[in-house]
């Protein structure tokens, strides 16, 4: 797929926004300003940004417990996300969801999900809905290597294949499911391999190369949009932080993390490419990063200054017709 100069700059900016957002969340969590559980996706930016970059605003995504990046990449605003993570009333879900449960239905973000594998069947339903309504929307469901072992994955992929539903299953294989290495837990060599069993395309990408991801996902999205059915796209990636903030990470070595950071960092790699191609100078990139950092600071300030919910608001939103 052709990616223009401006699109390339936008890809880098979005990856930087996600990185800075996540780093800030981590910091605020350790300052005990963010309650609950927090799962960060630092290191996985190319997979997420490349995938969402080929979606239209009216397309759907479903995210996971590690969902901030997906939601940002689909166009959500950092300030309402911070507010949600703080449990403030101005958050996307009025403080009812928190880090693990952010949604913006107006942008096709059908929600992050705290139940691993909870999103697959729901996206099947969105796929039927798209077909029945006769639109050419596409649904993209993000999931981890670990989630590919839930029965819901296999049921949903099979059903999507049987009915040629317009769904792209994007696996962000970061090599671990909590403490468990994918190489021990995923039979058959890869998640993408499983596509063959269901007679649909399965692609494996270098998940730290944003353009490679973008090209591969574009094909899958195009196929879905044209009515040819679902695909599985597996992006090989890596999370730098623990499974959750506070994870002791006995299942891997600091050296392994360092290796990824030094040799496969998606942002560093793309920056180098843009400079080599003469698309941006280091100075421009630094200025862009400073601008994004300032936006993040503003967003945090908005969240900090926002009020907590009135406790009684807990009783609202249960039913449409109580």
């Amino acid at each position, binding site marked *: 797929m052709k990616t223009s100069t401006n699109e390339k700059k936008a890809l880098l900016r979005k990856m930087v926004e996600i990185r800075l957002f996540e780093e800030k969340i981590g910091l605020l969590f350790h300052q005990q300003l963010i309650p609950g559980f927090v799962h960060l996706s630092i290191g996985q930016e190319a997979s997420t940004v490349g995938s969402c970059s080929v979606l239209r605003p009216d397309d759907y995504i479903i995210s996971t417990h590690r969902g901030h990046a997906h939601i940002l990449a689909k166009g959500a605003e950092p300030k309402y996300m911070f507010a949600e993570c703080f*449990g403030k009333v101005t958050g996307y879900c009025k*403080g009812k*969801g928190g880090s693990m449960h952010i949604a913006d239905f107006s942008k096709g973000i059908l929600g992050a999900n705290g139940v691993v594998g909870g999103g697959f069947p729901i996206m099947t339903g969105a796929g039927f809905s798209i077909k029945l309504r006769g639109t050419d929307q596409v649904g993209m469901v993000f999931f981890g290597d670990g989630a590919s*072992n*839930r029965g819901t994955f296999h049921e949903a992929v099979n059903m999507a294949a049987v009915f040629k539903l317009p769904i792209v299953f994007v696996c962000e294989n970061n090599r671990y499911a909590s403490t468990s290495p994918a190489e021990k837990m995923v039979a058959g060599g890869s998640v993408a391999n499983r596509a063959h069993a269901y007679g649909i395309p399965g692609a494996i990408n270098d998940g730290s190369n944003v353009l490679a991801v973008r090209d591969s996902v574009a094909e899958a999205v195009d196929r879905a949009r044209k009515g040819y059915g679902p695909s599985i796209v597996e992006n090989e990636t890596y999370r730098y932080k623990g499974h959750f903030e506070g994870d002791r990470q*006995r299942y891997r070595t600091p050296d392994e993390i360092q290796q990824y950071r030094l040799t496969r960092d998606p942002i560093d790699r793309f920056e180098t490419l843009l400079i080599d191609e003469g698309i941006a100078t280091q100075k421009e990139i630094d200025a862009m990063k400073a601008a994004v950092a300032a936006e993040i600071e503003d967003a945090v300030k908005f969240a900090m200054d926002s009020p*907590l919910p009135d406790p009684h608001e807990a009783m609202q939103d249960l039913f449409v017709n109580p």
Partner: protein
Amino acid sequence: MAVRELSCSLAMAEALKEEMERDTTVFIIGEDLVSNGGIFGQFRGLPELFPDRIIDTPISETAIVGAGVGAALTGMRPIIDMHFADFVTTAMDEIVNQMAKIRYMFGGQAKLPLVLWAPDGSGLNAAAQHSQCLENWFVHVPGLKVVVPSEPADVKGLLKAAIRDDDPVIFFQHKKLFNQTGPVTEDKYIVPLGKAAVRRVGTDITILTYSRMTYFCKEAARELAQKGIQAEIIDLRTLMPLDFATIAESVKKTRHAVVVHEACTTGGFGGELSARITEELFEYLDGPIVRIGARHVPMPFSPVMEHYVLPQVEDIVAGVRKALRR
């Protein structure tokens, strides 16, 4: 007998160690058990001692719970780690239609000596999908025993009893109590299923409770005592089988009762207790039985709302005064 102060997670690890040493058919199956000794440190030290009997699986709850059923049917004593109690929903067929029914449906031919261990409860700002108390669902299904301990000593003794029991036991342990410490004796004792514990003796009202709410009730009882109300606290410890004799003895004495649990009041175990006491002890009652539990919404994330939804000490105090009409 030597007594140590142990946390619930250490008490749990000790129970598991004793039972795994005693019986080689006991094994543990679930997700992320080995590294870090489980997500709550509840298996600390065990993977080194029993490397073949602590099995880390893929994220496949349906198969994990089903595997527990199959292994129990064929001579093993599995302990199934549900990771979070909320995820029982991903294996409800295995629990409700298989585990609970196999023995009865096949005319008593089989036995299912298994424990489904599930950390439950809120208070960690973990929001709607990681905070539930679902014990009453399982009390409602014939064929399952349900355990809800509060103290470290009971975690140890009841878990050992659950492992040795020949029937399926759903063992809920509250997440906020993992670090709760209490005296635990060094011997290899057992706390039998189906026996409640009187935690405080009182004459004016019976407070029936379990799990984390036991601690809230103790605090409420201290406040009530200052107002001249002496509450008797019964920690039920197991809901199925239920120690109704201990309940009846107390209610006959105090003539009043409240029920306190963290699960939603509506449709919760408190309704069952209230109905049973009314049916069997009506002539002893001098007032209505009051239920105290969570408000009827999924658990909201924001700490201020979570606090509001959960029953608090002041709600228990108010509930007791309502029951006593003073």
